[in-house]
């Protein structure tokens, strides 16, 4: 064999390997994915998006939406017959979901020195963010409402909850995360291979969408240029919740008033943050932690996040991004 032939054969082999690798990469990208059932709908007053990977003939999304509707029937203070509405009316209710949410959030309220408080209902009703009566309340109104905000005197015994000081519960800070938890439980019983579900931007991801077990990619919205994305989180499974000043807000006299209220002051949080995105193994806690961390600020959030084995991505008023804990986050170039 001539020297030229040997070189040609070597080049051919290299090119063949490259072409093979490239084709394999492309095929992998298209993925041997499981069949995907997609659904977008409205529930809990927000957008629900589901990508459910399974081989069942029957659609699973309608059942998942029923789970969310049933949760809203339980925790929405706006629904007259809900457990929370009953609690707000009579000071008592007996409901496992509500009791467990209040019990689990109490340590988070402690960690924020009461800035995060599910009994903030009397104050949040005054602001009515996203409602028909959204407005800047008078200072006297807020001062009159604050004495009724007190998670410490709420009693929880098994499923029984008692508020003796006229507290008005608002589970809005944990509702979407709770819905994520319940949808996950429902889908796991239905034998889904994998799913990624968004309940108004709170995310639940578990299982796999393909046989290769490709990690889920959760994009995070840029809180300053909201038409853009900040970056992407890669995760095998878990829950993601974001609290940001761009979600529900109004502007008056050149100032932005947004829905994340400091229960100690009755006014929107002033921690120098634009958004906090928390990654955690529990939906309700990720939701509660994102609000709590927004109230605490980036520096003070670390011990709280560590105590729940959670991670977070912070964006401050100047657009600086910082992370706490173990999160595989890749920021997009601005």
């Amino acid at each position, binding site marked *: 064999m*001539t020297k*030229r*032939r040997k070189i*040609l*054969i070597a*080049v*051919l082999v290299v*090119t*063949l390997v*490259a*072409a093979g690798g*490239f*084709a394999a990469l*492309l095929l992998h*990208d*298209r*993925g041997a*994915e499981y069949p995907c059932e997609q*659904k*977008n*709908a*409205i529930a809990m*007053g*927000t*957008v629900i*998006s589901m*990508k459910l990977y399974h081989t069942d003939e029957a659609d699973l999304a309608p059942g998942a*939406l029923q789970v969310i509707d049933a949760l809203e029937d339980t925790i929405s203070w706006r629904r007259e017959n809900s457990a929370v509405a009953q609690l707000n009316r009579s000071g008592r209710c007996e409901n496992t979901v509500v009791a467990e949410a209040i019990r689990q959030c109490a340590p988070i309220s402690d960690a924020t020195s009461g800035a995060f408080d599910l009994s903030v209902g009397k104050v949040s009703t005054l602001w009515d963010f*996203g*409602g*028909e009566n*959204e407005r800047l309340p008078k200072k006297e109104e807020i001062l009159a409402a604050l004495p009724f905000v007190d998670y410490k005197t709420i009693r929880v015994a098994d499923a029984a909850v008692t508020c003796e000081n006229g507290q008005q519960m608002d589970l809005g800070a944990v509702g979407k995360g709770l819905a994520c938890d319940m949808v996950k439980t429902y889908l796991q019983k239905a034998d889904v291979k994998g799913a*990624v*579900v*968004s309940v108004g*931007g*709170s*995310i639940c*991801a578990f299982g796999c*969408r393909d046989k290769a077990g490709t990690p*889920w*990619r*959760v*994009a*995070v*919205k840029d809180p300053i240029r*909201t*038409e*853009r*994305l900040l970056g*992407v*989180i890669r995760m095998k499974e878990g829950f*993601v*919740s*974001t609290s*940001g000043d761009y*979600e*529900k807000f109004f502007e008056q006299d050149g100032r932005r008033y947004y829905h994340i209220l400091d229960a100690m002051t009755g006014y929107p949080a002033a921690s120098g943050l634009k958004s906090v*995105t928390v990654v955690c193994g529990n939906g309700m806690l990720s939701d509660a932690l994102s609000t709590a961390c927004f109230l605490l600020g980036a520096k003070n959030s670390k011990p709280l996040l560590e105590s729940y084995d959670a991670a977070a991505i912070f964006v401050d008023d100047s657009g600086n991004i910082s992370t706490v804990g173990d999160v595989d986050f890749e920021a997009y170039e601005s």
Partner: protein
Amino acid sequence: MPKKRLPVGDVVIYAVLLVLCLLLFLLPMLRPAADSLTAAIIVDGNVVETVDLSALSGDVIRSVNGCEITVTPDGVRMTAADCPDKLCVRTGAIRAAGESIACVPNRVVVILRSAAENNDPYDVVAY
């Protein structure tokens, strides 16, 4: 001086190399463009219309269930709505696959989907 002919074996190898190089060049073009977006307009959970943004030469306006939806080649916005809170209008424009605008009172959702779902750089958007 007579021209020296290439051996047949070499010609075959050159031909195979040429084909492989062409394949390497053309394969990426087989992938659908990752940023080719479709706006799905959904009422009560049912898709009532889809608009391919890449096929638009100008703005398209749709009136659905009390919502005015403006679709442009680079995004979608709710330009008017008869709902009391107008949260949908205040959402502004959406431009990336997976993003959505919802008018909850009118039960209208507009969601942007990628024409190349598998090649999206993400599965879902947290906000």
